[in-house]
Structure formats: C-alpha cells, structure tokens
C-alpha cells in the first residue's frame, strides 16, 4: 500500500521541467534515458506496464537527440530527447507489435504508424511498447494476453484500461509521457485511476494510420502526461492532416496551448446531472464537489444542466463499437501474419482455429456481439437504431455548447478497483466507462486531470468541450491544475 507524497525526483519531472534541465545542461537525454531504463527494469516485476522495452533503440535515439539539443542538428522540439512510451497497438517498424493479443504473436510490422513517425521526427525517445487490454477492449488492463498491469498507487488494484500500461508508467516515473488510444475512455479512465493527465482530442485531429483499429469511428490517439501544458505540447506534435487516414480532418492546426494561461474567469461551465450516476462512490462525489468550488473561486460560472440521452450512451456504444470491431478484426485470419494453424484440413478451418486460439474471452465476446448486431434481421433494430440515437446524442451536446463553454464531470464513478473484482461480470466492467463513452460517440475533445484523492487513490476530473474546442478544454484544465496540487502527488513505489 502506498500513500501520496510530493516528490521532486527527476523521474517525476514534467516534460517542460525536463526540457529546462536539458537547456541548462543539467542532464543530457542519454543520461535521463539510461536512468529511466533502469527505473523500468526495477519496477517492471511489480507493474508489468511494458510488453516490449527497446533499450538499444532508445539509447541510440537519445544520443541523436542530444546532438539536436546541443544545436548541431535539426531545430529541437518540445519533445526532443524526452523518453516516452507508446501503447502496443501502435504499429512500430521492426519492433514487436501485439495489441496484447496472442493472435499477433511474433508480429513485426514493416512500417511506422503516422503518430510514431511524427514522434520520431520530433526527436522523442521511444522506450518501448505499453501493455493494454487485448485490442484495447477493456477497462482494467486485465484482458491482456501478457498479464495484468498493476496500479502503482496500490499494486493489488487495476490501473484502468485499456491504456493501463501507459497510465501506470507515467504515474510511476517509468517514462515522462505516453501515447494511448481512446475508443470509449481508454485514455481518460486509466489516467484518472493512476493520477495523471489524459486527453482524447477531437475525432479526426490525430491520424489513426498505423493504430490497430478497434472501433474506427470512435478511436482516437492522445497523450498521457503529468501536466496539462505537457499535454498541449504533445498535441502540437501529433495532430496533423494525413492522407493515409480518410477521416483525418483538415481543421486549422494551431498552437493548442495558446489559451493555456487565459484562466476561466466568466466562463460558463455546465454540470450534466446524468453523469453523477446512481452508484457513484461518495469519495468521488465529494472530490467532484470540491473541484466545482475551486472552479467557482477562479471566476467560472458553474450551473447544473441535463443531457437526458446520456442514459442511452452505453447501449449505443456497446452496439457500435463491437460492430466496428467485428469488421476490423476480420483481418486476423492467420494467413498474412500472426498465429497460424498449419495442420487444418481446409483454409476455413485454419482461420477458425487461429481465431479460436488467438483471441481472448473479451475480444471473442465483442466480435460475436458485433457480428450479431450486424447480422440479417437485426441490423435495423440494433446497428441502425444505435447510429440514429448517436445523431441525437451529438445534437444534445451541440445544443448544450450553445450555453456552455465546457462541461465538467467525474471521469469515472469509482476509483481503481481490485484486480479480479469485476472481470467475471462484463456489464459491470462496461459501467466503468459510463462518463467517458458519450464523448467518443459525439467525437468531442475531452481531458481528465487529477482532481482529488479518495481512500488514498487518485480521482479524475473530466472536462468536455465542443468539437474542435481542444484549446478550450486545455485552457479550463490548465486553470484548474494551476489552482490545485493533485497532479504533484506521486505514488511511493
């Protein structure tokens, strides 16, 4: 069991603090990379946050970054020399990529995804690949074929999911920043459980090319960081229009941190009452109420509002996401890569065996759910109906943002739960994401920041903005973070 503590140790520095250490020549990227690799090696037996660590690549990239930082190479960026992790559903050239599934056993991609390319161009040092729920399907990181990740605040508990390796690693000082994917809360909920910042940008702002697809209309890549400022710096690097992703937008790409210091005075912030769900833990509720008081003290106008369709969001999500997953995961046929079945009599049997052996329980459950929802006779009742309600949920948000600059909610109705506590009840597990899912359905930007403690565990506070209101979400979260110290707590591990 760990307790909260303020720790100014190098491993818990923000990326901006690390950059100032680079600028003052206090430490080099090579030195900090080696120190971080040592910390990874020391903590992995207890956390299991990485599926693959790539020390040689990291040290090579750090040495190149040092040249850049010394002014002998390309102009450095906000991430040059910074040791980061990417979730293991990001395609990485010549580095094992598994999505935490046995069906991708031994898969070595021939290409980098766009975000990985952008990180490399920026001079970030990739330490390795983060553990996750299999194919990002889960809220606890327990469905990984590589074993569960442990929460650094209490290793008996889950780190959240699906980006559980990413949130645990940032929280424990195994990296300075991590990149995850969020289909229904998979960046924000683990960020909340581990006491770090996690952002899901507006859908289409960050290329999904090279992200192993789960729910294509919902998936979005985003950063997990220690501060909101680091988050906006990361977003500046990874957002881009990409012709390889046909849903990538040509939105005006701006400095996402340009409103970082503007504060929330006179901003209208709505509190949708449906997010304070029945069964919300008392510690979450009291932390949330205290956060509202903080925002009010900063000059924000806080008022209650109602988004009645929120109650249907979970059903919409659990029809649309598995339907898209059942189509996306049809590519894993055991022929081109991954687990094959060489003894079968026919091609069909080989594929059925490879998929039967290669996919875990939760992935099978969702593929079957999606296959059912899309099958003859059920398409209109499930899939089409869910897409129509999706339209209504979007409208409800759009109307709400005529009145409010941003919405604020708890990130999750509960703190990190014990490993094994919910894994046998799929629907209870799905309820974890009740506050994060509506955002993906509507494609909105949203951020979770550390917003209190309950029973010694971190509590997340979620801000939601209008489509392309990413700078607003960052502005509000930054103002809250300047007024609080929750993000300075680190687990004693």
């Amino acid at each position: 069991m760990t307790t909260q503590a303020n720790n100014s140790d190098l491993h818990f520095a923000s990326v901006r603090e690390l950059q100032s250490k680079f600028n003052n020549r206090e430490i080099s990227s090579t030195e900090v990379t080696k120190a971080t690799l040592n910390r990874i090696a020391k903590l992995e037996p207890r956390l299991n946050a990485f599926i693959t660590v790539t020390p040689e690549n990291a040290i090579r990239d750090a040495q190149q970054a040092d040249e850049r930082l010394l002014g002998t190479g390309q102009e450095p960026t906000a991430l040059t020399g910074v040791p980061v992790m990417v979730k293991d559903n990001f395609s990485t050239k010549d580095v094992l990529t598994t999505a935490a599934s046995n069906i991708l056993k031994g898969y070595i991609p021939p290409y980098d995804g766009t975000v990985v390319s952008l990180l490399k161009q920026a001079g970030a040092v990739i330490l390795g690949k983060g553990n996750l729920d299999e194919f990002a399907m889960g809220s606890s990181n327990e469905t990984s074929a590589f074993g569960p990740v442990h929460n650094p605040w209490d290793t008996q508990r889950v780190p959240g999911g699906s980006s559980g390796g990413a949130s645990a690693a940032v929280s424990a000082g195994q990296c300075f920043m991590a990149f995850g994917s969020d289909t229904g809360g998979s960046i924000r909920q683990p960020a909340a459980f581990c006491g770090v910042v996690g952002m899901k940008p507006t859908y289409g702002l960050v290329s999904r090319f090279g992200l192993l697809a789960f729910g294509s209309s919902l998936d979005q890549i985003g950063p997990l960081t220690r501060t909101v400022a680091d988050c906006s710096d990361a977003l500046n690097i990874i957002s881009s229009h990409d012709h390889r992703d046909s849903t990538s937008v040509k939105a005006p790409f701006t400095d996402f941190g340009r409103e970082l210091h503007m504060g929330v005075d006179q901003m209208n912030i709505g509190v949708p009452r449906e997010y304070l769900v029945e069964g919300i833990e008392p510690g979450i509720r009291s932390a949330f109420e205290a956060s509202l008081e903080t925002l009010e003290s900063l000059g924000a106008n806080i008022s209650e509002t109602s988004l009645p369709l929120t109650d249907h969001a979970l059903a919409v999500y659990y029809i649309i996401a598995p339907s898209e997953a059942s189509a996306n995961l049809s590519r894993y046929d055991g022929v081109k890569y991954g687990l094959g079945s060489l003894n079968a009599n026919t091609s069909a049997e080989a594929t059925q065996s490879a998929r039967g052996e290669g996919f875990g329980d939760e992935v099978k459950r969702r593929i079957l759910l999606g296959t059912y929802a899309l099958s003859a006779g059920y398409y209109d009742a499930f899939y089409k109906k869910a897409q129509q309600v999706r339209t209504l949920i979007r409208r409800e948000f759009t109307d709400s943002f005529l009145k409010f600059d941003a919405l604020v909610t708890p990130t999750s109705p509960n703190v990190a739960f014990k490993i094994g506590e919910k894994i046998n009840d799929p629907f209870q597990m799905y309820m974890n994401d009740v506050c994060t899912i509506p955002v993906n359905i509507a494609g909105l930007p949203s951020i979770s920041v550390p917003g209190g403690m309950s029973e010694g565990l971190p509590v997340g506070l979620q801000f939601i903005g209008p489509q392309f209101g990413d700078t607003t979400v960052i502005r509000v979260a930054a103002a809250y973070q300047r007024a609080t110290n929750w993000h300075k707590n680190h687990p004693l591990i």
Partner: protein
Amino acid sequence: MKPLTKHDVEHIAKLAYIKLSEKETDELGTQLSNILSHFDSLSSVETEGIEATGHTTDSNTVMRSDHPEQPLDQNDVLRNAPDRDGEFVRVRPVLE
C-alpha cells in the same frame, strides 16, 4: 429480447469464423443475452426520420491524388506470414 440459444451462438460464431469450445458456447450464450437485455431501452428513443451517424467528421468519400508512392518492401511484408513459400503465402486447401 429473448435470450440467445446455443444454436444462435454457434451460428454467430460460424459467421465470425471463430471456433468455440462447448464451455465457451454455453458461457457466451448467457453473457451475450445479459448484455443484449441492456439494449432494450434504446427502443424507447423516438428516431423516426433521424439520420444515422456513421462517424462525426461529416466528410464524405475522400479522394486522394493518383500518384504512386514507394511501396513497402515485399520481403518485409511477407516475413510475418506463418506459412510462406518464396514470394508466396501458402494457405490450406480452399475447396474441401
């Protein structure tokens, strides 16, 4: 919504090309029926004449210019195939 029968689960698994054990078939029948029962509430939402949302960027068919790009190296692509013969991927017999 009536619960899924064993036959239903077997049918869906066949459509999805997933071989299930007896035990998995039984468990999934119960679990999927439970999950599906939570979807009934959607029928209470009035959606007459409402357009379906496929994704949220509102872009239609996106075209790109027809310029060839450098393709991936064939050997790099084929190195992951479980069963390979030179520049071919070998599969089990397609016809029974």
